[in-house]
């Protein structure tokens, strides 16, 4: 299917893109990898008047270690993250989650920034970014600001990003040595989007959980931190029984989604199963 008529312009820089956005207002949409936007335009679910292409901007495509933080440019593709040693050294779950997105062709085009800005409730990156304590860097006409991933995802396809802002990067504090992490998902078999996905990071010292960070996507209208699990396990021994007990009730305080792939009850069950698997995988 062919999208509605649309104009196309390629931005030369982030600042150029910002001024094009200011010029065209609500009629404009940024185009990164296009792998959420173009399929939606083909189905005529979205019909912007002009696309501002930022895919080729090298200032958005890098992965670097900057004084204790891992910085990933918004234009980095999922494939860039699969193959990034720096990302893997910071958190194993970064390349692990990237490699579970869609298929090789999707990973070659889709970008981290596009996924976070789009905020599909079934996307994989939002949960991983919350579990990694990431900060999301935004640039607008009035300058730059940073939002914690915990506060960034505000609902169904909604984020803290304003219409006149560009997501430029995420920065992730490199965790203490000995921190292990994983991303485990139950995927929709055709699209491979998460029906439920759990991102978890933890470190164990003297038989007790010293740090723990757990986030869930796919379950609710937006990814969220599973504080129930964190509170139950912090300072405890990571035994199978303790983990089993801690994951109970995950999602009881959010609006759980239901669709023709999975009912509310099934999703809640999956969240517990995948949280348990993730925590056992990184603490044993």
């Amino acid at each position, binding site marked *: *299917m*062919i*999208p*509605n*008529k*649309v*104009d*196309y312009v*390629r931005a030369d820089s982030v600042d150029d893109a910002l001024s094009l956005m200011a010029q065209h207002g609500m009629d404009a949409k940024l*185009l990164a990898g*296009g*792998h959420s936007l*173009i*399929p939606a*335009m*083909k*189905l005529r679910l979205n019909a912007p008047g*002009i*696309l501002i*292409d930022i*895919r080729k901007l090298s200032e958005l495509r890098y992965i670097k270690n900057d004084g204790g933080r891992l910085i990933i440019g918004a234009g980095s593709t999922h*494939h860039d993250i699969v193959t990034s040693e720096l990302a893997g050294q910071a958190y194993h779950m970064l390349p692990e989650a990237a490699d579970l997105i*869609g*298929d*090789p*062709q*999707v990973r*070659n*085009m889709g970008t981290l920034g596009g996924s976070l800005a789009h905020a599909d409730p079934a996307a994989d990156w939002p949960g991983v970014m919350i579990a990694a304590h990431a900060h999301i860097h935004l640039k607008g006409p009035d300058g730059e600001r940073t939002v914690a991933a915990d506060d960034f995802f505000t609902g169904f396809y909604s984020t803290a990003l304003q219409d006149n802002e560009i997501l430029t990067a995420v920065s992730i504090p490199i965790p203490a040595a000995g921190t292990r992490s994983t991303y485990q998902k139950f995927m929709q078999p*055709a*699209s*491979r989007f998460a029906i439920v996905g759990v991102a978890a990071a933890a470190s164990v010292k003297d038989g007790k959980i010293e740090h723990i960070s757990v986030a869930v996507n796919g379950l609710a209208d937006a990814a969220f931190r599973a504080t129930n699990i964190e509170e139950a396990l912090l300072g405890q021994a990571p035994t199978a029984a303790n983990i089993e007990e801690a994951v109970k009730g995950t999602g009881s305080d959010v609006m759980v989604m239901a669709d023709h792939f999975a009912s509310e009850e099934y999703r809640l069950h999956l969240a517990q199963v995948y949280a348990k698997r993730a925590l056992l995988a990184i603490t044993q």
Partner: protein
Amino acid sequence: MSTRITVTVNGQAVTRDVEGRTLLVHFLRDTLSLTGTHVGCDTSNCGACTILMDGQAVKSCSMLAAQADGAEITTVEGLSQNGEMHPIQEGFREEHGLQCGFCTPGMMMAAVDLLKNNSNPSEQEIREALEGNFCRCTGYHNIVKSIQYAAKKINEPEKEVA
């Protein structure tokens, strides 16, 4: 508003004016008459439209022709060189990797990307590399064998592949 693009397709530079909304797959099929690249779905799932852009497998139905400005594109028509079949084409012939043939161009382009990065993939790695390509006929088994044939052929071009 149309956009002037220059794309190198199968080694040849072409310059055309395209509408903003023109998908790359339609540019290849309708403007350049390269109909080997197929359209099998409306949902970006089937992979029949897979081509290589700057050496990487991508779905040409899910990007605009304008996005390919400046890129090197390889389609299935660009695989054979000087009348000699590419090892992946030979593999599909020798191992009966196709039935109706609709998915085949996309399968081959996805396989070429895999073999470029991993010249000796395991069966599991081959199956994972084809996650974005659907075949409704073969059950995938002979497609995997075709790719294994091509891998052998690429690694040992002089030897007859059994």
